[in-house]
């Protein structure tokens, strides 16, 4: 059985600590609903599902050896 090297393990552990710290700090970020006017604008939202972006992703998927990690729905006014 092949074991991970200590160097890789320590890097993974460091990344996990950083990720947990970052997600914990997210709880400190408070943007009230009345402060969301700019965030609600389409220019500030991820994954606007625009036609040009979809066409571009289609081309890049077929012209490069990598894929994934693209934008997902998120951001906005939080006014559902």
């Amino acid at each position, binding site marked *: 059985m092949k074991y991970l090297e200590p160097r890789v393990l320590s890097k993974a552990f460091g990344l996990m600590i950083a990720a947990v710290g970052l*997600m914990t700090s*997210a*709880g400190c*970020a*408070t*943007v*009230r*609903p009345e*402060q*969301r*006017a*700019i*965030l*609600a*604008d*389409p*220019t*500030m939202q*991820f994954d606007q599902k*625009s*036609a*040009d972006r*979809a*066409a*571009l992703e*289609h*081309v*890049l998927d*077929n*012209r*490069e*050896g*990598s*894929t*994934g*990690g*693209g*934008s*997902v*729905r*998120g*951001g906005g*006014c*939080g*006014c*559902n």
Partner: protein
Amino acid sequence: MLSRIKPLLAERLVARHCLGALLGVSVLFGAASARAQVAALDLNSALFVEPSKRSGLTVWNPSAVLAVTPTNWLTVQGGYEADIVSGASESVKGGRLSSVDIVTSATHFSDTRHALTGGFTVTRATTHLSGSYTYGTEHDYRSNSFAVSAGTDFLQKNTQIELSYGRGFDQVCTTAYAASDAPSSRLALDNSRGCFTNDKKRASRDISLNNFQVGWTQTWTPVFTTQMVLSAALQHGFLANPYRSVVIASAGDQALENHPEDRARGAIGLRGKYYARGLQTAFSASARLYRDTWDIFGQTYEVDAERYLVPWLRVLVRGRYYTQTKALFWSDDYTGGEPETGPRGKYWSGDRELSPLSSYLVGARALATREGKPGQRVLGLFLSFSGSVSFDLLKTNLRDFTLGGHAPDDTLALLWSLGFRGEF
């Protein structure tokens, strides 16, 4: 654009207040139209052109999607898209030592892919759930794919988590070789006639696809938001090009491209959006790192800026840089005796997307939106409509890839896109 920035603080304050009022009105209008919305129709058309003296490529991609929202918590949608492809490509790949004339082997082809999709989205106060199915067909390829995604907001809606999973069951047409046949004796397709029929010279091979994704979007301030996306994909089956032969012996012997049957892929994307009040512009920057079990390491860096020129017209400009290493088994030539141009294990490939490359992209988009006033419809029909036009230019630098020792001339690509969206 930057030269138009107003330098005086007073003017900035006025502009800031005007923008705030404008955005506030747009939020109210958006919320109102979302409640009243019955249907939305998206019509798009994209044209991709890769000019070349011998192996140019043109792809026209029209699509239409109709989404109906019968209640405020359910949206049902259906769509159609096509890829109408015509061009020429080299059916044999040889490298700098090749004794075969590769360049004049380019053959013309044309095909059309049709894809039908249907899906739904259920939206509640802080959660949403989506599901979709897509069927795609062309002369030599069929695909069935299912996708589900779910997302939720928490921490006063400043944090959003989105999970998604996709499963694909694809089939590709190849020549009818047996699994026990030596890879070096397998032949490539020369056309798609007889595919998915009882023709004994054709066979269909399965491709299994699994895609996982998790996204975390975080709002940090009223003008700054970030997103992190982790993706993983597992592919199994026939992952080569059934039409491509590779020269594998110095005498000119050719065999069907031979790729591993399994590929695990992973990527992490980090992006941030910041609204610069002084410039009245939304800036976005992103970085993406990619790694797979074929030993490709890819890096993508992208920036864009978007702003309103007038309240109904906004313009976006973008730039992108991409670089990747080669697949472990990729070589420009497999016929030499040394490691760089000789055999590279049990696999061989003529795929330039697996070669070491980099690319630059610049593009722009203009999007015009018209919202109907409360109680009134635009043109007597639409609650709102928008139209967009975009242009992108992609230049690829193939570091090692050659066709018989000659650098390909189809490394510049142009993409035009037109879109229309109407809500009524």
